[in-house]
Each structure stands twice: as structure tokens, then as C-alpha cells.
């Protein structure tokens, strides 16, 4: 009640009716829409980065992953269009058409994405094609590749992720899972365990869709005829399993299953997807539970004489150690579970391999098959004495291992078996995590790095002559194979990227446009390193190790030359499935240059294009909004009590001014972060604007009145009685000043979200002749460029922009702009010639704001 009374009083004191308040509320609402727009922009960029990262890692995600990210992104892109149209009162009607066009294209690809595989529940291993890991999971897809290459692999089929999706939908478990993840947020490990047990039980009890039940049991029965003792095995083949995230041992394999139990075994393997350790593992790796997709590999059971695991190189040997084979008699389950001490063979990695040594283990019993499952048999002395593999078999196995390593271009962790007929078969092959030497990176070179830090936008190393982007440098001069060094991560640099050996920037994060482009084009990129443009000189040869976040002087051969560990560790990219094109329609950025005539809604071909366009236009609209308010401010404005050459009125959009401000506003009551910084600059006592300046006679003759150049005689502090307006919120400032004959506008967002921070500044006009106004504009252009803005000037108009700096840097710039506004005020009168531009720029740089010394002798004439 007291609050409301206060509002009425406020209205009365300010002498404006409801109309003024309406305008204020309308402004507040538009500003909020602007904030929502900025946030949605960041959210879409985060989704884009996530998609790019997942696709770059290759085969880790299923069609469902892309589908879910597409749905999330589409809502946010659509929302951004709505926000922009709200702010601008519907000035962008064409955007919605562009959105629906792109959407239709993506829908079509996703629909065709399944292609001939749409609705396929069960697929024979030999029918699997390259690039179908999203359908069959990584394990089955690796085995299918071996089978295609003629390597010995047991017969089998895969129950696809499509079948999994049907199962989850049919049983209603999918929706329950999404809810559950929300309920489980922040819960203790115990609660997670309780819940995952409950969920697993639900899966074990859930009916399979009838068509799946039928196909699975038929295919299982057929396959069992090929299996030892008429049995089959079922193994997890989750999407993303056995890749960089190995999930080793977290999911289930069931051996010796009678075909009649195929359905319940299938449910058991699927249920293991939600075993507590799997849930916890995924959480730690940042893999979301709702993205987990499980295919199941069903194979004819092998009754092995011996089986085991082969590492094609010692995992602790930095890629240089020998090949290792662990072997047990019978089935290998105990070996992988760590309950048996296996026999060990070490072999030299060469063609043909050479047995270095053999060490018997301590196996006391072996695991074999029985009619309805598994049986344990204790080993007698003779059985214990006979090695599981003969020397010839070990050599043959090692040869297969090296072939696998070559095929997958990466050291392998192989599960193998030796059949009763003495035939070797491969049960599974997955990338081996080799420690001690990091993947794709050599050990740090002995050279002292020039720079350390920043964020890896795209790993890898590159060397070449540095090309430091400056206002004078033209991108077309960028040398092939050069290293692009820039202050900010501006998409304007995109044109040079395909020719760059590497990219380094002072400012910027991994979710930025340029970082995205670097990933897309495969350019090693290190962003936000701080002072690269200061410490690196143009033309200097440097080496960038983006993965290790280091920049070295000169060419560091160990990093850039061919290195075996790279070849060993980098998995060969799988062929991209057709539906990856849909990702391109979300992620690619074509609209990189806001000044191009092609920067229009009709040219938006991707979601990324749309948000880039909307983001750019939102700045324009906020500018326009400030300008409108400057012309007709309506109610709610408070005058700042400060001695300035113009009246400065504040409009608060929310938390920009201290609570309880009356009708008079004191500078310290401005709590808006950017607003306070600008005021600090405007009120800097070092700039004594209220003091006559030297005026060249020619300049004086060309203006209307000499009184502009000296303080008003009546002591009143104003320029032709004009007002300036500052619209503020906690993190926002729009400053608008039409004083005398010139116009200054400034729009800035400055807060904790570095990605949102920007300052946009415009200046034009003046009272002197055109050539003098232009010279002043040149001076302002010079000063802003020195401050790090990207600046454009046409005649007497200057516009400058800077973004994505940390808040403290932004605040320094805003304060500087306050001083600059006062320093350049009426300066057009002084602009007798171009040398004056240099002279004044030097004076400003020397903080001689008042042109105190050497006015006569210093002024060129």
C-alpha cells in the first residue's frame, strides 16, 4: 500500500499522467524482451556447440540426439524472432518465413534419415553399412566392419536403436524416464540407486512390442542353429559405447542364452543401461541419461578352447610398448571381470610379429558351456600346464591385432576366442586408451612458450607467420598458411579461416561464431588468450598448440611435423550418415558480414544464420528505441544533479537506480553497472569542459555563434538548453544526446555473461563546415580505434562496436567514452586541417584533455 501511494506521489511530482507511465512500462517490457532474446541466443549457440562437438567425435550420437537438439533449438530460434518483432513492433515479418523454410528442410532430412532403415527392428550383422552406428551402436558397427573386411567374426544380428525406441514408447518408460531425471536432480547416490533399481525392474517387467517380440524370437531361433550347443549371446551395443567413452564393463553381456529366453535377455541388457554405475558414469562424463540409446548385439555362441583380451600396444607404454595378449582356457568372462589371473604373452609389434615371452598365470578352473547356460570345470594339472595358445596361434592373433589397429587407425582393445576347431574369432574390438602420451599431442617441447592460457576452441597444432588483424590490415592480404591473430573473435574473420594454419584471439569463448567456424573448418583455434595481439608481432613465425593452450615462438617441429602418436590415436572418421546434413542446417553460418547486401532474412539458410541476423538487428532496434525515447521521453525520467554541459535525465528499466530515489538523482544513486561507468567518465575532473578553448579564427567564422565556445555568461550549465537521456537497468545503458548540432548515442550491455557484453557507439553532426565536421569525425574514429573498437566512418558519421569483453574491460571503455564525449564536444571548431587530427589525438593520448600547454606553439597552422 505504501508502495502504491509512493507511485502516485511520484506521478504527481513528475507532473505526468498515465500516458507517461504507459510509455515507461512499454519501454521496460521491450527491454525485457531484449534480455530474453540475448539469453535465447546464448542457449542456441550452446546447442550448436554441443552438436558440433558430438558430430566431430563421430558416431557417438544417434538420430534421437540430433532430433532432440533440433526441437530445443527450434523453440529458441522461434522465440528470438518473436522477441525481435516485439521490440521493433513487427519490423521483421520475413523472418518467420525463413524459419519455417529451414524447418521444413530439416524435417525432410530427418524423415528420410532412417531411409530404407526406417522401422527396422532387427538387422543381420552382414547387412549393416558404414555409418550406421546410430542404428546398431558402436560395438555391432565395429564388428560389422570387420566382417565386411573378411576378418573372422561370429554370425549375428543387431536389435536396433529403433527397436529400443519402440520398446520405451510402447512401455511408456521413455516419458517416465524424462520425468525421473528431473525428480532425481540433486538427489544422493543412495536415492539414485533406489530409483535405478526400480527403473530396471520396470524394464524387466515391461512387455515388448509384439512385432519386436516376434522378430527377435524368430531371428534368435535361426541364429541359435549356428551356435555351439544351440545357444546365443546378447551384448550391449549402446550408441557411443566403445568409443572415447568406453563404458567398459558397465553394460551387460549375457553368454550361453537359450533362444527361448531371448526376449528376457534383451530386457536384461537394456535394463543395464540404467544400472546405478552406468547412470553415475554418464553423469560424470556429462552424457545425459535421456540421450542414452541401446542397441543389442545377438551372436551365435562360440564354445572356446581359450579366450581373452589383446591390447595391440601396452596401454602404459605411450604407444611404443609391445603387444599384449591375456588368455584363459575356456570362456573369458572371469578374465574381464578380473577374477582369474590369466596367462600373458608379450609380442614385438612388427610384421610378422615376434613372441618376446610367455608367462603362465594361475587359472584354477575354466568356464564352459552347458545345455542351459554356463558350467564351471576345475582344471587338472595337465590342463593347467598346457598353454591356452600355441606360439603359432599367438603370432596369428597378434597379426590380426595389428591388422585391426591399421583398419581403425588407432590402438585396439580386442576380445578374442579360439574355437574347438582351432579357429580364431574376434568378439569385439574397440579403441584402446593409451596413457602416458596424450592423444594427438607430443610431450611439451623445451621451447619457452610465448603465451599460455585461453580456451581450446578446436584442438590441434599449426605454425606459420602471424597475421595480426589491425584496422589497417586487410584480410585479403592474409597469407596462405598464416596464423590469424585477432583481438576479438569476430565472424568477419571467417573469410580468412580456410587458409589459416591456426587461429588465436585475445577475447572470445568456445561458443562464439568464429569458434564454431574454426571447428567446422578444422582449424586449430585458441581463443580468449588475453594479449596475443600485443605480444605477437605481424609476420613473426609462431606455433600454436591449441589443445595444450600454448603459443610458441618460431616453428616447433615436434608439434607440427608428422608424429606417430597422432596417427595411432586419432580414430579415423566414420562416413557421415545422410542425416548429418540436418545438423548443417542448424549449425552452419553463412551470414558473416552484417554490411553485405546479403545480410537479409531471405538469405538465412540455417538456424545459425537466423540467430546471427536477429542478434545483429536487436542492437539496431535498441538503438532506435533509445533514439525515440530521446525525442519523446514520456514520464518517469529523473534529472541527474550534476554539473555537465547538458541536462542528463535517467529512465530506469529495473534496478538501474538505487531504491528510494526521490525526484532528484545523485550520481552515486546510479547503480546500473554500465551507467555508473559512463557517468564516472563524464564527471572526470580531469576534463575541464567548462573552460574556453583556443579557437582558430577560420573555424570561428564558420559557426553560427561564438557563444558556443565559451561558458554561458549567465553561469547556467547547458548547451542550448538540450537534454540527454540515459535509459538504464542493472546491466544495461542506452545513452542518447542531441546537444548543439551533433548527436551522440551509446548502447551497452555489461554484466556477468561475457558473451552478452557489448558497446555500440555512434556520433555524427556538428556546427562547423562540412570539412571540419569530417575532420572531427576522423579524430573520433582514431580515438575509438586506439581503444580497440571496430570503427566505421562515412563523412561526419562514426559508428563503433565492440563485444564479448569481460565486464571490467568494458567498464574501462565506457568511462573512457565519457571523457571522449566531453573532449570532442565542439571540437569541430578547432579542426583547421588534418594535422590538427594528429595533434589532438596525441593530446588525448597524453591525457591533455584541456589542451593546457602549448596552445599557441603546439597548434599546427
Amino acid at each position, binding site marked *: 500500500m505504501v508502495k502504491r501511494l509512493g507511485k502516485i506521489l511520484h506521478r504527481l511530482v513528475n507532473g505526468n499522467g498515465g500516458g507517461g*507511465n504507459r510509455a515507461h512500462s512499454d519501454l521496460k517490457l521491450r527491454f525485457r524482451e531484449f534480455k530474453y532474446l540475448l539469453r535465447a541466443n546464448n542457449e542456441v549457440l550452446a546447442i550448436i556447440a554441443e552438436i558440433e562437438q558430438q558430430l566431430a567425435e563421430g558416431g557417438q550420437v544417434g538420430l534421437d540426439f540430433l532430433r532432440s537438439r533440433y526441437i530445443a533449438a*527450434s*523453440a529458441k530460434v*522461434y*522465440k528470438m524472432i*518473436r522477441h525481435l518483432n516485439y521490440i521493433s513492433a513487427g519490423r521483421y515479418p520475413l523472418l518467420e518465413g525463413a524459419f519455417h523454410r529451414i524447418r521444413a528442410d530439416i524435417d525432410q532430412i530427418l524423415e528420410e534419415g532412417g531411409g530404407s532403415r526406417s522401422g527396422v527392428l532387427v538387422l543381420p550383422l552382414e547387412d549393416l553399412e558404414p555409418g550406421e552406428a546410430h542404428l546398431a551402436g558402436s560395438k555391432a558397427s565395429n564388428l560389422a566392419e570387420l566382417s565386411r573386411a573378411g576378418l573372422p567374426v561370429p554370425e549375428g544380428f543387431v536389435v536396433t536403436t529403433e527397436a529400443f525406441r519402440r520398446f520405451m514408447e510402447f512401455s511408456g518408460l521413455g*516419458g517416465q524416464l*524424462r*520425468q525421473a*531425471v528431473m525428480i532425481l536432480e540433486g538427489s544422493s547416490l543412495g536415492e539414485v540407486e533406489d530409483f535405478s533399481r526400480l527403473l530396471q525392474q520396470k524394464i524387466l517387467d515391461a512387455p515388448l512390442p509384439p512385432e519386436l517380440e516376434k522378430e527377435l524370437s524368430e531371428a534368435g531361433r535361426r541364429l541359435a542353429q549356428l551356435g555351439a550347443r544351440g545357444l546365443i549371446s546378447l551384448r550391449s551395443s549402446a550408441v557411443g559405447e566403445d568409443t572415447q567413452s568406453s563404458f567398459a564393463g558397465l553394460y551387460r553381456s549375457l553368454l550361453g542364452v537359450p533362444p527361448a529366453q531371448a526376449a528376457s535377455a534383451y530386457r536384461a541388457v537394456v535394463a543395464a543401461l540404467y544400472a546405478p554405475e552406468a547412470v553415475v558414469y554418464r553423469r560424470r562424463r556429462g552424457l545425459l541419461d535421456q540421450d542414452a540409446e541401446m542397441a543389442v548385439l545377438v551372436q551365435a555362441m562360440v564354445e572356446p578352447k581359450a579366450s581373452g583380451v589383446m591390447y595391440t600396444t601396452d596401454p602404459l607404454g605411450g604407444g611404443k610398448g609391445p603387444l599384449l595378449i591375456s588368455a584363459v582356457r575356456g570362456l573369458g568372462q572371469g578374465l574381464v571381470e578380473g577374477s582369474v589371473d590369466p596367462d600373458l604373452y608379450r609380442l614385438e609389434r612388427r610384421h610378422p610379429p615376434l613372441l618376446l615371452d610367455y608367462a603362465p598365470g594361475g587359472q584354477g578352473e575354466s568356464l564352459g558351456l552347458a545345455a542351459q547356460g554356463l558350467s564351471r570345470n576345475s582344471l587338472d594339472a595337465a590342463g593347467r600346464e598346457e598353454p591356452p595358445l600355441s606360439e603359432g596361434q599367438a603370432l596369428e592373433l597378434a597379426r590380426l591385432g595389428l591388422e585391426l589397429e591399421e583398419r581403425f587407425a588407432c590402438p585396439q582393445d580386442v576380445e578374442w576366442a579360439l574355437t574347438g576347431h582351432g579357429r580364431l574369432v574376434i568378439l569385439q574390438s574397440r579403441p584402446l586408451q593409451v596413457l602416458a602420451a596424450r592423444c594427438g599431442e607430443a610431450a611439451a617441447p623445451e621451447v619457452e612458450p610465448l603465451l599460455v592460457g585461453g580456451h581450446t576452441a578446436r584442438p590441434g597444432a599449426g605454425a606459420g607467420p602471424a597475421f595480426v588483424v589491425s584496422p589497417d590490415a586487410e584480410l585479403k592480404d592474409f597469407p596462405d598458411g598464416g596464423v590469424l591473430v585477432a583481438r576479438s573473435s569476430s565472424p568477419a574473420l571467417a573469410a580468412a579461416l580456410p587458409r589459416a594454419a591456426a587461429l588465436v584471439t585475445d577475447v572470445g569463448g568456445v561458443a562464439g561464431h568464429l569458434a564454431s567456424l574454426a571447428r567446422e573448418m578444422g582449424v586449430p583455434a585458441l581463443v580468449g588468450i588475453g594479449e596475443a595481439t600485443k605480444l605477437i608481432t605481424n609476420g613473426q613465425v609462431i606455433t600454436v598448440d591449441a589443445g595444450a593452450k600454448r603459443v610458441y615462438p618460431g616453428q616447433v617441429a615436434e608439434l607440427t611435423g608428422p608424429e606417430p602418436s597422432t596417427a595411432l590415436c586419432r580414430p579415423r572418421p566414420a562416413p557421415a550418415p545422410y542425416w548429418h546434413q540436418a545438423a548443417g542446417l542448424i549449425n552452419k553460418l553463412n551470414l558473416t558480414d552484417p554490411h553485405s547486401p546479403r545480410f537479409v532474412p531471405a538469405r538465412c539458410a540455417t538456424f545459425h544464420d537466423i540467430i546471427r541476423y536477429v542478434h545483429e538487428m536487436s542492437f539496431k532496434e535498441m538503438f532506435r528505441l533509445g533514439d525515440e525515447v530521446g525525442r519523446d521521453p514520456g514520464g518517469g525520467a529523473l534529472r541527474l544533479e550534476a554539473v555537465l554541459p547538458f541536462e542528463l535525465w535517467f529512465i530506469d528499466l529495473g534496478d538501474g537506480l538505487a531504491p528510494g530515489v526521490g525526484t532528484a538523482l545523485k550520481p552515486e544513486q546510479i547503480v546500473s553497472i554500465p551507467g555508473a561507468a559512463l557517468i564516472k567518465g563524464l564527471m572526470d575532473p580531469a576534463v575541464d569542459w567548462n573552460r574556453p578553448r583556443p579557437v582558430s579564427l577560420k573555424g570561428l567564422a564558420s559557426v553560427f555563434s561564438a557563444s558556443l565556445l565559451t561558458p554561458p555568461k549567465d553561469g547556467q550549465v547547458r548547451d542550448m538548453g538540450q537534454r540527454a537521456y540515459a535509459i538504464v537497468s542493472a546491466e544495461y545503458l542506452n545513452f542518447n544526446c542531441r546537444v548543439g548540432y551533433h548527436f551522440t548515442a551509446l548502447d551497452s550491455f555489461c554484466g556477468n555473461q561475457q558473451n552478452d557484453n557489448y558497446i555500440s557507439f555512434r556520433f555524427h553532426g556538428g556546427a562547423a563546415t562540412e570539412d571540419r565536421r569530417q575532420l572531427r569525425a576522423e579524430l573520433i574514429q582514431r580515438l575509438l580505434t586506439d581503444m580497440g573498437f571496430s570503427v566505421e566512418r562515412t563523412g561526419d558519421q562514426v559508428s563503433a562496436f565492440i563485444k564479448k569483453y569481460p565486464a571490467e574491460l568494458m567498464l574501462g571503455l565506457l568511462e573512457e567514452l565519457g571523457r571522449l564525449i566531453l573532449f570532442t564536444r565542439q571540437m569541430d571548431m578547432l579542426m583547421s586541417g588534418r594535422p590538427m587530427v594528429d595533434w589532438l589525438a596525441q593530446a588525448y593520448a597524453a591525457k591533455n584533455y584541456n589542451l593546457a600547454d602549448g596552445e599557441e606553439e603546439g597548434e599546427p597552422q
Partner: protein
Amino acid sequence: MSSFKVLVVDDERDFLESLVRRLQRRSVDAAGVTSGEAALEHLEREKADVVVLDVKMPGMNGIEALRQIKQCHPEVEVILLTGHASVESGVEGLALEAFDYLIKPVKLDELIERIMEAFDRRKVVGELTGSPPPDQS
């Protein structure tokens, strides 16, 4: 308790109860109903500032409920929260002036942040239309 009222609408009773309880534990004045019809009745009896609305529900679905809420109570902000997201329902909901379209699971902190924002917007819209939220201070 918060100075604003939140109504959660979701047909899954377990989920609804858990969410309402967790919101209350975080001092949000929250109530829950299990259908779109019940939500409209609730809004007639008792005001709410922000509605958190499930999309896929038996009977009146979330989109239809949104349409009717916006018709009868245009000042109420609606956040759609769905476990069965689709591009169509997102566009449809946002075109009907839903404040946001969120996909389950959403972190509680994030949901509360969105609710606060929606309430902040609701206050400003109230200033504009002359229907401020009921003053509870």
C-alpha cells in the same frame, strides 16, 4: 513464501507432487492440479501469476489449455514444460504467447529462474494494462 503464486499442471501425479513440494521447499507459493480443465477452474477460484503447464495430457491438452488461459486471463504468464517435445508444439505454444517452452528434464534452479522472470514480466504487463498482480505485501 514468494509474493507470487505459481500453478503447476501435470497429469503425472508423482511428478506433480514432487515438483510442487520442491518449489514450496524453495519458498515458491506453488499449487498443483492434474488437468487443463482443473487448471482453468483453479484460475477462476484462485489467482495465479505464473502457470507451469505440461503439454501432453489426456483430455484437454496443454496447448488448448494455454489458449483458454490466455483468453480468460491474458495477464497470466504460462511456461510450457514437456517431456514429449516437438517442433510443432513448441511453435504453436510460443505463437500463443507462452512465456517459454522448456523440455524435461529442467534443473530446478533454472525452472525457478524462469518462473521469476515470467513473474517479472507479468508485473510490467500489469503496469501496462492496469491489472497489477495482487499486492500481498
